[in-house]
């Protein structure tokens, strides 16, 4: 059976050039970059190179990059680290209803610590209202955390406008760009961002490595203490192979943005149009224009999402319902819920996340098998027969 992977928002395969660059750092150049001897010095240059590559991707200085272990760490460090550091200045944080749980739950943690959190609502396309954002800012506001691209729907927030509002009110601005980086241009200077999270495994680097951009002058309270690594902002022996891989993936991502905008967007649109024309009573979730080029979130009336996924899986097609993190927890997606999608449509949403390896044949295969799957499940559903009867 041919296997078609369309879950690139959950994670991606490591790219060949990335893995190749990593391999020498497991057994030959295995030193600790903090060591002064040959074994350490051989690798500290590699960490520097990777730092420059990551910085180049997002248009910042290498010293503004902190290497982390994942997107969740980056978000926790940015949000908790900023809040604690700025505590004397204020205790109010603004975020949005559709953030990744790593952001929302970091904010919930801070609520227990005495912070007040404003969670901005979104409209039916998952978009926030900038006027509402600006109105929420008060004297005590120390941080705005609003994501670049949504992991479930792909909706892109107007980051530059948010940055301008934050700057105007002198409030720190963090953005979770875990889904955006490598898919759309991410320029921290142009967007006026103070902190930005990325995670390697979402764009061809390995799992276990990420980075946080921290604009010069932005103090942070640490999460990990001790070692002097990362200019005393993140202790722990460097994950050298992972960091090297992240650097190469960033370099490739810069070069590949055109592919995302071109070939991958075309595939996604072909899939979207194909489903809309073949299957009745479906609904695309997310913003029509401002959307990650690789992402399609779509709901099928009368049936439930996991059942669709299982049938796709049996045909070799990997997709997801909402975020991968949700897949073994109950309940509907908080993102789809916040968009006001009705419960049954929310329960049937499927996310296709296209990637570099996907072809037109892959899309056409999905278009071939999906109508049958949907019909089979609808034929089992009491809602469908009731609707047909009415």
């Amino acid at each position: 059976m041919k296997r078609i992977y369309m879950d690139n928002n959950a994670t991606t395969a490591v790219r060949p050039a990335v893995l190749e660059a990593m391999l020498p750092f497991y057994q030959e150049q295995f030193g600790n970059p903090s060591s002064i001897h040959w074994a350490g010095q051989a690798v500290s240059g590699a960490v520097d190179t990777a730092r420059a590559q990551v910085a180049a991707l997002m248009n910042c200085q290498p010293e503004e990059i902190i290497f982390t272990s994942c997107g969740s760490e980056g978000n926790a460090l940015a949000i908790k680290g900023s809040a604690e550091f700025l505590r004397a200045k204020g205790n109010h944080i603004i975020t949005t209803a559709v953030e990744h749980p790593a952001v929302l739950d970091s904010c919930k943690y801070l609520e227990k610590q005495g912070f007040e959190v404003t969670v901005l609502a979104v409209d039916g396309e998952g978009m926030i209202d900038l006027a509402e954002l600006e109105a929420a800012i008060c004297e005590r506001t120390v941080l705005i955390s609003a994501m670049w691209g949504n992991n479930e729907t792909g909706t892109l927030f107007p980051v530059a406008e948010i940055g301008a509002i934050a700057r105007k009110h002198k409030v720190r601005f963090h953005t979770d760009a875990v889904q955006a980086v490598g898919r759309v241009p991410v320029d921290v200077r142009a967007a006026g961002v103070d902190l930005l999270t990325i995670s390697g495994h979402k764009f061809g680097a390995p799992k276990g490595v990420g980075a946080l951009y921290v604009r010069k002058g932005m103090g942070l309270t640490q999460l990990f203490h001790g070692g002097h690594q990362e200019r005393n902002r993140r202790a722990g022996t460097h994950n050298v192979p992972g960091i090297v891989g992240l650097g190469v993936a960033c370099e490739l991502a810069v070069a590949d943005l055109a592919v995302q905008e071109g070939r991958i967007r075309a595939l996604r649109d072909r899939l979207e149009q194909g489903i809309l024309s073949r299957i009745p009573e479906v609904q695309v979730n997310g913003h029509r224009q401002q959307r990650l080029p690789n992402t399609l979130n779509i709901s099928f009336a009368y049936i439930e999402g996991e059942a669709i996924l299982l049938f796709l899986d049996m045909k070799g097609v990997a997709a997801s319902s909402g975020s991968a993190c949700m897949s073994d927890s109950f309940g509907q997606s908080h993102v789809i819920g916040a968009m006001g999608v009705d419960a049954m449509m929310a329960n049937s949403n499927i996310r296709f996340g296209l990637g570099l390896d996907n072809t037109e044949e892959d899309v056409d295969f999905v278009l071939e098998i999906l109508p049958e799957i949907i019909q089979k499940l609808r034929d089992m559903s009491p809602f469908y027969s009731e609707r047909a009867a009415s």
Partner: protein
Amino acid sequence: MYSDKVIDHFTNPRNVGVIVDADGVGEKVSSSCGDRMKVFLKVVDGVIEDLKFQTYGCGAAIASSSMMSELVIGKTLDEALALTNDAVAEALDGLPDPKLHCSNLAADALHDAIKNYQGEGA
């Protein structure tokens, strides 16, 4: 994640459908996940002669419905009333922890249908 039996019953669910002139009809909606199951019974001499179901839900819910139908067709109403949700899950060689509640639909909807039948027949 799922046992082979779950996959089998999910892929080829037995006894899907409606019985238009059913002797009893039952229904159960999960409060936790919104899954919903409808059960239609044909009863002859206190024995379940036929059973059809409709299910809106995940793989575990559909497989549980199908397995339940196999377990009780041909059984007496008393035997059917003794069927527990756990027994359905067990017959499927188990379900993943977070999916256990999905098997609850099946026995509950069945019992609801039997009550509906008995209520009408009483």
